[in-house]
């Protein structure tokens, strides 16, 4: 699906209906049993709705007209039984419907979250976190409201309406005609408001998502907002978001208010027609008094469903908008898709080749242009160059955070697009510049959800990364619990941990490392350098290098400039060339190049 999941100016009515049906079918199917029970009970309830007025008519025209007091009692008992049954059915269908609906929604939330986790880095660059959170929570809640209350109302009231119309025509077609004459008018009014309510409800969702994205960012950055006196400007900006949200809500409410009022008026007109026509009928003898009383009740009951449907209309429209947003999200293909028939690399030798690779994040702003590079298995390559030269993009492509627009990248002769992402993540180990620590034990942070990695392997990786020493000194060692963001260990220790993680997840694959520029304590720095020197000797590695010692330890240096490889060779060769690298080197290049 090529549609951008972020565009919230939603599609036409048909795609929204289709989206809702698609969602319903997909999410409800596994829970059809309780759903079926609920539906049967619903139908029974709706049909029972017709009974009380009918009993009333029987009582008035029968025993009451005849002055037969004892004849009223059985009808009164039947009336009571019908009411009790309706209560029992109502309770039962609500229970079963909730059971099916809540399970389906829980499934839907899980699917959304899993789907989001499959997305590429560029997806997260585009989607504000607040927007995602809105989709995961508020949109699903909206659909929940539809499932748990609106759909019930619609079904019960819909069936009730049909049953009442049938019974009315069966009892007295002239009166029935009078009662339903306003229904076509009502249908037209509904059509008129349908489009307006739907458009304004979509506007409301979009405004809400924007508002939460703004809130999310500013709440996160509150310290800076306060320290730099940004409160007034932020408040003003929030005002704009808030105002837009308010306008969207007002427009939605205005439309639904007009709609409801129009319906009330039409219902009153319908009732007046029955009273007038029925009165004539009773006097002229083509209708009985009991029939008139029953018809007044029927008309009220017939309009109650219509009014209730109207009230629910709003909720349905909002849910349709939400359903479409959810569906779009679920249907948006990750821009780094899994291959249909993935190949497996059982053992990684580590030969890497880039063939005519071109890449850009934004069209017409190329980041890499026609880059070709062959790295034999076991070679270590240091990538150097100024900010914006394309180093990070090159490394990101190797790890398949993105796919190139042109050319291909081969690992041991296989296009990395053909490898399953799982396999690729084991074949290419990535150490990012700013390592992430999740709350959990040290061991968990090293194996990171890969339960197949044994304690011994965790320990070996930590030793190779020179992280074992500091870990063993922590209280509890590998069981030591990290605070969110790794706040209770130093920046340097976090980097050692990230290195250990990469080695554990991919013990023999290609190491891709974006050397941290952060200044860290000298001790950790020495440990990292020592570990890196050792690792670079043993496996294929591509390192964005910032330190001279790392560059010297590499077998080969490539220099990037404006998206191209401009120099390629070992330290001595490049110095002799007296070109870009030589100049960089003179200027303490290790210090010069940031990401």
């Amino acid at each position, binding site marked *: 699906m090529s549609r951008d999941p972020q565009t919230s100016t939603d599609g036409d009515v048909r795609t929204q209906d289709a989206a809702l049906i698609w969602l319903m079918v997909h999410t409800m199917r596994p829970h059809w049993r309780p759903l079926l029970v609920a539906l049967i009970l619903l139908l029974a309830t709706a049909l029972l709705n017709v009974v009380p007025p009918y009993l009333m008519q029987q009582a008035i025209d029968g025993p009451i007209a005849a002055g037969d007091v004892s004849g009223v009692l059985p009808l009164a008992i039947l009336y009571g039984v019908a009411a009790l049954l309706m209560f029992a059915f109502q309770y039962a269908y609500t229970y079963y419907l909730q059971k099916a609906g809540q399970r389906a929604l829980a499934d839907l939330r899980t699917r959304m979250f899993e789907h989001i986790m499959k997305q590429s880095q560029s997806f997260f660059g585009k989607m504000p976190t607040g927007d995602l959170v809105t989709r995961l929570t508020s949109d699903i809640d909206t659909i929940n409201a539809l499932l748990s209350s609106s759909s019930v109302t619609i079904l019960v009231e819909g069936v009730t309406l049909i049953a009442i119309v049938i019974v009315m025509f069966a009892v007295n077609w002239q009166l029935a005609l009078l009662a339903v004459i306003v229904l076509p008018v009502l249908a037209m009014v509904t059509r008129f408001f349908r489009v307006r309510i739907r458009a304004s409800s979509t506007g409301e969702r979009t405004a809400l998502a924007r508002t939460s994205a703004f809130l999310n960012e500013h709440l996160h950055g509150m310290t800076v907002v306060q320290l730099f006196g940004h409160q007034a400007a932020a408040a003003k900006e929030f005002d704009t978001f808030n105002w837009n949200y308010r306008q969207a809500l007002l427009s939605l409410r205005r439309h639904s208010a007009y709609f409801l009022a129009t319906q009330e008026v039409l219902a009153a007109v319908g009732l007046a027609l029955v009273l007038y026509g029925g009165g004539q009928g009773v006097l002229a003898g083509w209708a009985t008094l009991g029939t008139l009383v029953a018809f007044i009740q029927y008309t009220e009951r017939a309009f109650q469903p219509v009014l209730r449907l109207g009230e629910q209309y709003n909720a349905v429209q909002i849910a349709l908008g939400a359903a479409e947003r959810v569906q779009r999200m679920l249907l948006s293909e990750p821009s780094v898709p899994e291959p249909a028939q993935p190949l497996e690399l059982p053992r990684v030798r580590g030969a890497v080749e880039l063939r005519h690779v071109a890449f850009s994040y934004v069209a017409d702003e190329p980041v890499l242009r026609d880059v070709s590079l062959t790295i034999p298995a076991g070679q270590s390559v240091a990538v150097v160059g100024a900010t914006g030269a394309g180093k990070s993009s090159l490394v990101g492509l190797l790890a398949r955070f993105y796919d190139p627009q042109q050319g291909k990248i081969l690992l041991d002769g296989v296009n990395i697009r053909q490898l399953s992402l799982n396999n690729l993540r084991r074949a290419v180990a990535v150490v990012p510049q700013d390592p992430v620590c999740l709350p959990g034990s040290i061991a968990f942070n090293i194996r990171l959800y890969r339960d197949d990695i044994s304690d011994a392997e965790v320990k070996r990786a930590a030793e190779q990364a020179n992280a074992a020493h500091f870990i063993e000194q922590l209280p509890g060692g590998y069981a030591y619990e990290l605070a969110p963001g790794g706040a209770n260990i130093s920046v340097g220790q976090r980097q050692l941990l990230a290195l250990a993680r990469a080695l554990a997840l991919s013990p023999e694959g290609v190491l891709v490392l974006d050397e941290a*520029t952060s200044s860290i304590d*000298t*001790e950790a720095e020495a440990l990292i350098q020592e570990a890196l020197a050792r690792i670079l000797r043993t496996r294929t590695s591509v390192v964005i290098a910032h330190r*001279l010692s790392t560059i010297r330890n590499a077998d080969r240096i490539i220099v990037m400039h404006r998206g191209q490889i401009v120099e390629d060779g070992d330290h001595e060769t490049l110095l002799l060339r007296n070109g870009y690298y030589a100049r960089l080197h003179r200027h303490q290049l290790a*210090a010069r190049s940031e990401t």
Partner: protein
Amino acid sequence: MPDIADTEEAVSPLLHGNIRFEGVGVRAGGTGRWSLRHVDLEIEAGTTVGIVGATGSGKSTLLSLLGRVIDPDEGRVTIDGYDLRSIRLATLRSTVVTVPQETLLFSMELRRNITLGLNNIPDERIFEAARVARLTNDLAQLPHGLGTIVGERGATLSGGQKQRTAIARALVRDPRVLVLDDSLASVDTHTTAEILEELRSARAGRTCLIVSQRLASVRDADQIIVIDEGRIAERGTHQNLLALDGRYAAMYRRELQQAEEDTHDADPNSATEDIR
């Protein structure tokens, strides 16, 4: 009521930047443990203080007292004799500007990120701040220069670019007191040295507090304090502390060893030529 707010009698004096910590103690959030205790420190206006110490030793806590992100639980902090709590927050925060450890940029134009909270700042002032923060070259490389919209939380910039933007944000306000809370951590050593040199020459009476993991960033400070477990363990100039042969001297020896491996063949004479 917010617990950090202006009192009715809050004043807005013209401040020079003489800072005193008097018996300051701060409890770790909600616990009985002290994350900072018995801190006495005097910083004369216009001088630079370097603060070093291990992760979690209390350096950031000390700095966050200055912008009144937190208030002390014991003792007081004064500027020019005024207790910080008696100065209007807006006055205090335009006098003392902190570049926090974690860089926070917003999804808006780079220009607005730098002038955050200010209005009508002429471009020359922004460019000057960008120059001192060594951001000029990056501006030239960004698609729309100052008008470039940075992604959510600055996602489109590198770690170093983000930090240098945060420094430019502080400098454009030309504060009397500049507080760098490990704000150069993602900036490479060479650029860090350039920025510190710029700050020194453009300082003109500005008080600076610099927290850093790199001793090279603080060695020229008028006074260096070493914080350990919430207390000031050592204080003095670089030379004093080396002579003391304590923690600072040990840290320095380790860093020297490291630096030797890294930079011994760099040619300092050509360091000003632009290689980009």
